[in-house]
């Protein structure tokens, strides 16, 4: 058990990777065995991430050096710098890892019955597992170049998944758009990595953070990184791909592609807090991120209100919700260099932003799945053509209501808790920003009321008389997320104290991150 915990950072990446290459072989013989392998591999990943998380909360962050004599030997004798591939998992990384693994598991279960209708299921599961590898790898790595590699794994598999239903022209175009944006974004990241390597001859995040000078080249690299990850995160003004891609991605993968974009948010946070830390001009960078956040929040929701395609509507809400995270985290960065303000409201703002990531992954994932369930049953995504579905699809209706109430920040749902944390702390920083955030929340509620009313209530339409509830595996996939939302809503303090606050503390504790790799050097 102890050795399992020690090796769990790499196993959480390697086991989905192994399963990804096993599925094509097993899929040749039996599609049932293949489905079982996929579910088991993702369940094992989830288990590994959870035991790793428990150990991290108990005894601090984990360093895993690939290919060394012992996992913690990041800087070998006679070397002043880490020379091997290093994974570094702290409370923040493992927090994101839990989200990714959970959503991947729910999405895979949900996809089982969906894939019975499609051809090429084996390739679908390979891509789904690779996307999981990309997300968890991006979150666990302690090395900038590996960040680029995992970003590319995530982008390629995500784009192929988005364009998976090749019989629809818009699906391929959605996938193509995502791929173009990702390819450009990843090359920009690689360019920034090159700038760091040219100056310091280092690639390891901890080693770089130790010697970071914040020269003008470093400023250029920071701007490039914010741009690239902002693009992957679909923050306004670089959001154009998101509605197209989210609206066409097949069942179950939309939440995964969404969580993948949150993994890019994690990369942005990690770079700002750990790589640059207080060496950078914190208030300027903080304000840049706040402006990106406010723009995303406001433009996302105003465009969403007038959408009639249910998945595009949700995609614009996804953009708008990312704005809340950027707002909370931006406020945290802006006051990073000021210990008084950081203790007074900065930490609450960061915690609110981080808590919003997990809440959002859950309810946004659930809403995407219900939208896909409607599409599965009705064959349309147009809200104007739907109506009266509450009669035919009881469980989907309930799940939709849970998700919609949570995203609109209605107490006592979990969306309310994290938004409240953001409002309170942002109000102390700048009252205007808090007012905008509340306004956006009201618009979100309005938009979802409209969507609910057109899809689920109203007279029964004759053409949908024999529409039935979706199959069981789809309900189980949605059920997992709904149960988690209810749990998070009932015990917000427990969740904040156990997993959110340690993540915030580990983000602020830059010195701890550096010393665990660099030791006493």
């Amino acid at each position, binding site marked *: 058990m102890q050795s399992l915990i020690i090796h769990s950072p790499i196993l959480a990446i390697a086991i989905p990777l192994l399963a990804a290459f096993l599925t094509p072989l097993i899929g040749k013989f039996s599609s049932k065995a293949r489905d079982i392998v996929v579910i088991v591999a993702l369940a094992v990943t989830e288990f590994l991430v959870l035991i790793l998380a428990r150990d991290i909360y108990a005894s601090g962050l984990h360093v895993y050096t690939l*290919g060394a004599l012992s996992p913690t030997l990041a800087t070998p004798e006679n070397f002043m710098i880490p020379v091997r591939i290093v994974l570094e998992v702290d409370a923040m990384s493992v927090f994101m890892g839990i989200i990714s693994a959970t959503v991947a598991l729910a999405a895979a279960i949900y996809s089982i019955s969906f894939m019975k209708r499609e051809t090429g299921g084996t390739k679908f599961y390979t891509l789904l597992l690779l996307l999981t590898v990309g997300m968890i790898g991006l979150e666990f790595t302690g090395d900038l170049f590996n960040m680029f590699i995992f970003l590319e794994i995530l982008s390629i598999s995500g784009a192929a998944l988005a364009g998976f239903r090749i019989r629809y022209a818009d699906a391929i175009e959605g996938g193509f758009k995502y791929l173009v944006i990702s390819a450009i974004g990843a090359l920009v990241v690689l360019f920034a990595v090159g700038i760091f390597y040219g100056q310091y001859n280092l690639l390891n995040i901890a080693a770089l953070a130790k010697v970071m000078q914040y020269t003008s080249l470093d400023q250029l690299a920071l701007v490039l990184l914010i741009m690239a990850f902002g693009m992957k995160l679909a923050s306004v003004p670089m959001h154009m791909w998101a509605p197209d891609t989210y609206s066409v991605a097949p069942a179950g993968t939309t939440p995964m592609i969404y969580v993948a974009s949150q993994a890019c948010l994690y990369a942005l946070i990690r770079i700002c807090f750990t790589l640059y830390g207080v060496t950078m001009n914190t208030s300027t960078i903080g304000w840049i991120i706040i402006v990106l956040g406010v723009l995303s929040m406001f433009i996302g929701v105003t465009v969403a209100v007038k959408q009639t395609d249910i998945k595009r509507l949700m995609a614009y809400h996804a953009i708008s919700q990312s704005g809340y995270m950027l707002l909370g985290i931006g406020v945290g960065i802006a006051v990073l260099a000021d210990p008084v303000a950081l203790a007074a409201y900065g930490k609450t703002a960061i915690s609110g932003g981080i808590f919003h990531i997990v809440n959002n992954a859950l309810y946004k994932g659930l809403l995407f799945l219900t939208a896909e369930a409607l599409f599965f049953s009705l064959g349309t995504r147009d809200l104007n053509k739907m109506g009266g579905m509450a009669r035919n699809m009881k469980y989907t209706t309930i799940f939709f209501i849970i998700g919609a109430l949570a995203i609109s920040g209605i107490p006592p749902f979990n969306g309310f808790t994290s938004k409240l944390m953001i409002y309170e702390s942002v109000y102390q920083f700048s009252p205007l920003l808090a007012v905008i955030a509340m306004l956006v929340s009201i618009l979100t509620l309005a938009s979802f009321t409209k969507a609910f009313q057109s899809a689920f209530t109203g007279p029964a339409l004759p053409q949908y008389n024999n529409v039935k509830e979706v199959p069981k595996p789809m309900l189980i996939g949605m059920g997992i997320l709904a149960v988690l939302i209810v749990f998070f809503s009932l015990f917000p303090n427990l969740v904040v104290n156990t997993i959110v606050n340690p993540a915030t503390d580990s983000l602020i504790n830059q010195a701890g991150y550096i010393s665990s790799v660099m030791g006493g050097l």
Partner: protein
Amino acid sequence: MMSKIVRTITNLFTPFIFMFGLYVIIHGHITPGGGFQGGAVFASGIALLIVAFNSKKVQKHLKEHHLSIIESSGALMFIGLAFAGLAFTFFFNILIGSPIFGQIPPEGSNPGFIWTAGVIPLMNIAVGLKVIAGLSAIVLVMALSSSNVRIEE
């Protein structure tokens, strides 16, 4: 299908291209090259075959699902070798000191010893298999789809 001159030259050259690709893969740990580069050379030979003859004719001897099996087994071999090091760490080089590829080369300038570097040559072979199969499949499927043949999923 191209002219007789092209086909004859292709017949003459492809064995050498394949041989050179395999050489680059196997000597990856002591000379420039390795799994990807050698695999790409090998796959370019297959691309030459597709251009000179046509894609349907090549497809008769080279089925996509066989290629996908080779590709997956290459990847599995690579990950398996990485898992083998788990007694120490993932990717630990377990073959150092053993009779297979385990010799430790002397320090300084040397002409290159092939039985060195532990699991790295084996990983090169695994990557080579994967790249040969993967790139050949890409080239083949693209050629087939541009000549309007329905492709099996």
